[in-house]
């Protein structure tokens, strides 16, 4: 069979795609090291905008937003991972129960519904039940849309674990609970960890839903960046963006490495 790379125009198409995808990132990353105050004129290599991020006039605002983003991402990823783990156990190990298909659809719903719809619906819902928008509503919304992202790697991992390990544990006098904690959970761990990391990234990165449910005066890093860009793009935004890109890449790489290690030793 001929490989895909033998199709005519393969190389050109690949280059176009890569350019469209990555050229903007390269530009942002390169210009974050720009020494001038212009965003289009190159003024030599410099760390000044990174210094500006941490000490400049906007540093307090971005610092607070970053702290909100991080704590929300950690809390949302943790809650979503717990829920997704329980859901995986029910879906993969729970046998056939009524509403199984419906549950599966429900878990994955946030992947299917357009984000803007979820955003509007969440805001309306919070208003209707009388919840004041702010940190709490952001957290609730993030937990909800993080669940399917945590669920996918966890359930995939669980499906790959033969049920005879749990049976062996039960046979050797482990209660249901200890069979889970001593045997199943350690075997699931790579899936659980990469589920958490994925949820973490998704939460850290979210803008649309957050922007709707955050309320006045509350900022996460993406909404703060958006707010700042509305007044014109300054080079410090490029430095912040580059930092976020680096953090995301690090987390995704970590998640991938953990998953790969898990696959090698089932």
């Amino acid at each position, binding site marked *: 069979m001929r490989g895909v790379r033998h199709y005519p125009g393969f190389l050109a198409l690949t280059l176009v795609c890569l350019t469209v995808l990555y050229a903007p990132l390269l530009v942002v990353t390169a210009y974050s090291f720009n020494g001038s105050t212009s965003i289009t004129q190159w003024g030599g290599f410099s760390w000044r905008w990174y210094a500006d991020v941490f000490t400049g006039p906007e540093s307090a605002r971005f610092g607070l937003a970053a702290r909100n983003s991080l704590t929300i991402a950690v809390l949302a990823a943790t809650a979503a991972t717990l829920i997704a783990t329980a859901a995986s156990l029910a879906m993969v190990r729970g046998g056939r129960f009524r509403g199984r298909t419906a549950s599966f659809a429900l878990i994955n719903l946030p992947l299917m519904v357009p984000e803007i719809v979820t955003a509007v619906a969440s805001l309306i819902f919070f208003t209707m039940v009388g919840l004041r928008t702010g940190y709490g509503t952001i957290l609730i919304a993030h937990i909800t849309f993080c669940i399917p992202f945590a669920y996918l790697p966890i359930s995939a991992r669980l499906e790959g674990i*033969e049920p*005879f390990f749990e*049976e062996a544990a039960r046979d050797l*006098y482990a209660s249901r609970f200890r069979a889970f904690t*001593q*045997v199943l959970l350690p*075997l699931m761990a790579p899936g659980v960890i990469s589920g958490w990391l994925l949820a973490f990234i998704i939460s850290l990165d979210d803008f649309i839903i957050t922007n709707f449910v955050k309320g006045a005066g509350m900022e996460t890093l993406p909404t703060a960046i958006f707010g700042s860009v509305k007044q014109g793009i300054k080079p410090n935004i490029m430095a912040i963006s580059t930092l976020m890109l680096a953090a995301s890449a690090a987390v995704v790489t970590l998640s991938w490495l953990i998953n790969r290690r898990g696959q090698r030793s089932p």
Partner: protein
Amino acid sequence: MAAAIEIIEVVKRFGATTALESLTLSIADNEFFTLLGPSGCGKTTVLRMIAGFEPVSAGEIRLFGQNIAALPPDRRPVNTVFQHYALFPHMSVIDNVAFGLKMKGVDLAARRARAGKMLEMVHLSAFAERLPAQLSGGQQQRVALARALAPEPRVLLLDEPLSALDLKLRQAMRIELKQLQQDTGITFIFVTHDQEEALTMSDRIAVMSAGRLQQVGTARDIYETPLNRFVADFIGETNLLPVDVEAISQDASRVRLPGGGALTVPGTATPGRHTLSIRPERLVPDPAGPLKARLERVVYLGTDLHLMTRLQDGSGLVVRMQNSARSALPAAGEVLSIAIEEGAARLLAD
């Protein structure tokens, strides 16, 4: 003293399919008991019900006289050696072996000492700190054995534990397993579809087919006095001859052989068509023999020879002979007279 395991009229259904139809068995304490049967006959299902992974659909299982229906697997003093071993991949060999003791609440020093002793018993002391993935199949099998024996169960269930090993290792493990059972005094229930394995190790064998018990007995019983066609055919090799029962005395029957000869065999049956089972090694070429058969070919087996012959009525007959230089080999096409050793022919129930 109560039997180790009593299985009383146990039925097992999976939805519409019936995996076991009313099984009744009694297994004595300290016995090496084998469940033997072809794939899909329900052997694993029996073990899983004893271990507690599957509930019975009807009937009762008693362990030393106690009905165990209500006990979950972790409350039954029964351990399993799984077919694929199911060693915990994230634990070292010694932690695997000590797992049952840990769950039973034995303290660290005591369980490590006992696990160490178990590893010594299966000659794996040098591998204590390795992960299961770093062991060969045979070594994993012995770890699984040590792990199941460490908590001193009253009954050990073994589900085809040797099937993944090569022939030489399998033969060596048969002897080791038997020795281990005698040394520990634990009741072994061993599952296999390999009749040779069953014959060499077991105190008693239950032959199963399609969810039904066919015969229970010692290796000698089931080999020499098979009750029915399935058992005769499944255990070892046999010749099944169609015969007519002509006369019945107290405990013997007179049968007409294919080709006209007559023979008196132990056991009684209703007059009419029946099947006679005769092992190939109990047939001998003999000018005075009642069977006349044409030799078609000779199959060389090393220590033995198989004479593939055909009777006048067209049914095949295999005669097994020792391969010795002293006797001259008959030639293909020759018509031989064949004698049946005294008491070697069994009249089958079906």
